[in-house]
Structure formats: structure tokens, C-alpha cells
């Protein structure tokens, strides 16, 4: 988990593997810098491979920005759990969190790059999704 205080769109990385999530976050920090709120989560609640809603909610909180948060996910359950987490957010935050349909590592770097320039949430999501589409 790491974050930064800025008005830019936050980025959350969700992988079944905590190592992948952390590694992708490291890449974002190195390539994009610290102008973007960033958090990662991975693993099930017992520490095995998987994803969990509580961890995703916590990551969204860590990376929260008034401009919103873009969530990058890997496979299946990561997406379902992320969507569930978004629905469990307070109503005023729900509309400002989006799950991107993009590869988790590349998408995170591209989304963070877009965010670091001050782009709004919709543009951040579009960049991540279009790059490999």
C-alpha cells in the first residue's frame, strides 16, 4: 500500500497474487512517479492466491481521490470482487470508482500516466482500455 496526496485520479491494482500487485505498483511508481494516489491488494483472506472484497475496499480508501479511482484487475474473481467492492462503497463515492477492462500491469502504468497529467476518470479508464484494444 502506498499513496500520495494529489487531486489526480487514484489507481488501484488488484491481482490474485500479492507479488504481482505489488510489482505492478512498483512499476507505476518508477515509471510515473508519485503524482498519482496508488494502492495495491492481492491474495485471499488466508494469504493464498485470490482476491478479497475487504482488501479491495481498503485499497480504494488508500488511493482515494476526489477525482475518483480507476481499478485494474487480473482474472475473473478479481473483477467480480472489485465490482462488489464498488457497490459496497458509500453512495457518493460509488460513481467515482471504475473497474477497467485492461491488462493489469500495462493498464496500471498507462492509467497512471494519464492520471498524472491531470486527466479526468473517464479519460484514465479509456486510455487503459484502448491501448491494447
Amino acid at each position, binding site marked *: 500500500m502506498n499513496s500520495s496526496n494529489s487531486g489526480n485520479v487514484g489507481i488501484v491494482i488488484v491481482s490474485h497474487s500479492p507479488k504481482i500487485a505489488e510489482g505492478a505498483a512498483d512499476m507505476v511508481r518508477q515509471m510515473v512517479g508519485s503524482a498519482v494516489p496508488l494502492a495495491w491488494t492481492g491474495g485471499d*483472506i488466508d494469504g493464498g*492466491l*485470490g*482476491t478479497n472484497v475487504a482488501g479491495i475496499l481498503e485499497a480504494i480508501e488508500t488511493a482515494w481521490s476526489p477525482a475518483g479511482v480507476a481499478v485494474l484487475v487480473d482474472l*475473473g*474473481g478479481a473483477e467480480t*470482487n472489485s*465490482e462488489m467492492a464498488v457497490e459496497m462503497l458509500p453512495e457518493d463515492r460509488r460513481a467515482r470508482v471504475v473497474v477497467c477492462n485492461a491488462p493489469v500491469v500495462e493498464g496500471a502504468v498507462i492509467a497512471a500516466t494519464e492520471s498524472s497529467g491531470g486527466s479526468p476518470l473517464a479519460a484514465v479508464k479509456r486510455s487503459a482500455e484502448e491501448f491494447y484494444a
Partner: protein
Amino acid sequence: MSLDRVAREKLVRALADSVIQHADELTSLDQAIGDGDHGLNMKRGFEAVLATLPGLADKSLPEMLKAIGMTLVMKVGGASGPLVGTFFMELGKALPEQSIRADLVAATAKAIDAVKARGRSEAGQKTLLDVLVPVQVVLAGGGDAKAIAAEAAQAADRTTPMLAIRGRASFLGERSIGHMDPGSRSASLLIGAAVKVLEFEASS
């Protein structure tokens, strides 16, 4: 369908036991076409539900179902946590405090719609919906406990020859054919356990 506290606790224990006792079977089904964690995940979720007893059974039936759903969402993980958890949560939201069978018919229909939306799926794609949907039809048609449980078991069996279109098994394409869907199996176990406690009589 007014369940007193004793019946509510009995229902929770029956639901949990049905999954916990078959955890190994669910895992081996999931090892064939998924990532092999379904039994463990569901067991962890329902053990967490059991840990909220006896307080859980003090709640009204709708509140109890919502609480079970929330625990499953938070503890099961995988894609099953949100799917099964959503079913329980929406069922609780849709049921009135004092419910009759018609309320359950309407509430299960709503809960199934919520599962479809959550998984962006429909029946016929080798998921738990292939059990939930036909079982709801039998419930709506007035079937008794035995008919509902039988449909649940048969519906799970019918997923064996299906091609997976949603979920992890869809990565396997045609290799998913010939294996029962683990999520359908756990749904049928839960339904079988529930109707045994609720002792549905046939209605016209």
C-alpha cells in the same frame, strides 16, 4: 414460512454443514475445470457464518439472510463469494418480515436477477444459475421439498455436458465439457439443505 429462532439456527447450521461436509468434493470438481479453491473458499465462508451464531439467529429471517450474504461476500473470495453472497443479500432484501411462499417465489426471482447482473451471465453457461433458475421454476410451480431438492440435484448433473462460457472454466473451452460445474454443485447442496429444514409442502 414463519421461522422461529430455533428453526433459523437449524437452517444456518444445515446450510453450513452441507457445504463444509462436501468441501473435498467441491474442491475436486473445481480442480477439474477451475482453480481448485471452491471447496476451501465455500468452507471458509460458511465457517465464518457459523461463527456469527448464536447472534445471527436472533435476527429476523430477512436480516439474517442479509448478514449471511455479507459474511460470504467478505470471506469466501474468488468469484463465488460475490455471487453466492449477492444471492443471500438480495433474498434478504426482497423478503418481508412475515413471508408466505409467494413472497419467497418473488424474492428468489429477484435474487437470481441480481446474481445474473453480478456475473453478467444467464442460465446455460455452466454456472450456479443453471441450478438456481430451474429450481426457482419448480418452487414457483408449487413443488414440495422433495421435488425442489430433486430438481436441484438433477440440474447440477445437467451442467456436466455443458460448455462453460463464463467463469474460469470458460478458459478451457471444450475441455470444460464432461465435468460438473462446482458452483452448481454447491448451489444444489445448499438448496437441498434448505428445503429439508423448511419442509416445503406442495402448493397449487
